[in-house]
């Protein structure tokens, strides 16, 4: 199918883009990589009056590590470029692994990191990775610029803290502790598909003691937003990440996750899958510590 008609504009500054989004006369929508939006236009599930293409705004094309050691990814940075960046691969390998699980290279060549986060499909990889890595989101609109945490950013399926007249300009990943290991695991039917359920794990090792000092555990595909399970994290902290500790942690997953049934899987299947993924992910993360 073909999109219904709309106007298209490609501003060259964030200010111009925000003015276009704030125009009350016409319903405007941001287009970045278009890898989620254009299928929706083709199927006429979305009918915006104006598309605001933000990929020609030079300041949004930056990916860099700032003076405090934070990784900052601008809204026009494509997924393939981010995943290939040496600084990202070196300092935030979980993020690279998450990106590499998005669809296929042909999609990642166009899709942006921020576009996936702003779109917020509950089965998508990047929202889960962003919560696991404690990312912050820089949002600019007619009322100015604000920064929100990952906890506050994801609101519901296809819904985030970004209002219709605002732009997610940048996502910021803080530096990780030195003694940490990570893993990103998914249960998918086919390579490249959206996952039925997935997990991102970051474990920090206490220097000297060989026990888990901090843990972050986040699931995708288990609710309308990425789910951080504090009970699971608590079960891991202080343990040796061995068999017994992992069994206990898996138990907290079975008790703590409340996914729903859908066409792809029953809630029970998701819960069990999640518990298995957790054990596998923690084992990998601990080996990497």
């Amino acid at each position: 199918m073909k999109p219904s008609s709309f106007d298209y504009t490609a501003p060259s500054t964030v200010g111009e883009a925000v003015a276009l989004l704030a125009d009350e006369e016409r319903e405007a929508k941001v287009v970045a990589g278009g890898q989620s939006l254009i299928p929706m236009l083709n199927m006429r599930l979305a009918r915006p009056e104006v598309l605001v293409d933000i990929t020609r705004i030079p300041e949004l094309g930056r990916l860099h590590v700032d003076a405090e050691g934070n990784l900052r990814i601008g809204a026009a940075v494509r997924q393939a470029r981010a995943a290939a960046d040496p600084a990202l691969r070196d300092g935030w390998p979980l993020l690279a692994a998450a990106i590499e699980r998005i669809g296929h290279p042909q999609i990642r060549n166009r899709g942006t990191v921020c576009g996936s986060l702003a779109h917020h499909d509950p089965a998508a990889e990047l929202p889960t990775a962003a919560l696991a890595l404690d990312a912050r989101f820089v949002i600019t609109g007619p009322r100015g610029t604000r920064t929100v945490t990952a906890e506050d950013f994801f609101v519901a399926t296809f819904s985030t803290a970004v209002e219709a007249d605002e732009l997610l300009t940048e996502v910021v990943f803080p530096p990780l502790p030195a003694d940490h290991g990570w893993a990103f695991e998914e249960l998918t039917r086919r390579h490249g598909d959206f996952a039925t359920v997935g997990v991102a794990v970051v474990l920090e090792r206490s220097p000297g003691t060989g026990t888990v000092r901090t843990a972050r555990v986040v699931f995708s595909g288990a609710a309308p937003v990425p789910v951080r399970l504090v009970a699971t994290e608590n079960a891991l902290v202080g343990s040796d990440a061995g068999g017994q500790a992992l069994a206990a942690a898996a138990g907290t997953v079975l008790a703590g996750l409340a996914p729903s049934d859908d066409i792809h899987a029953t809630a029970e299947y998701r819960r069990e899958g999640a518990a298995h993924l957790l054990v596998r992910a923690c084992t990998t993360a601990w080996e990497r510590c």
Partner: protein
Amino acid sequence: MTPSVPTPLAARTPPLAEPSAWHEISLTVNGRPVTAQVESRLLLSDFLRDRLGLTGTHVGCEHGVCGACTVLVDDEPVRTCLILAVQCRGTEIRTVEGLAPGDAPLTSVQQAFHECHGMQCGFCTPGFVMTTTALTEQSDRPDGEQVADALSGHLCRCTGYRNIRRAVCRALDERFGE
């Protein structure tokens, strides 16, 4: 009675539902400069096929799943059904027609698909060929996982993927040595 000469039908540009807009775009397609007026909503796939007559780029699903419409935009394989023509201002596009124009010999990728019988009906083939062309243009040889990842972006309804994989491996051997 002399047969009456039929009056020609007057073709006209259909009125556009508002709001819309036309844009002038300039880009390069298969090494040749192109300037055109395009409506905002025109997909790159339709621009190539209907406006430029380059029908080698096939359209299957029109929502990014099948890969038949894949071309190289600035040397990267991408879906033309998920890009607006207007977004391609200033880019360099290569389609399957650009690989061996006129009487030029087939590229090693095309030759490998030919020799390994990497097709049956050929509908999916232009997409596979363009993605494989990009693989052979990387600076390093892609590993098995990268090849699988790239090919998983294409659906073939005829062949099973064995011969396609053989063709891709042959093309990579040719380019990078065995």
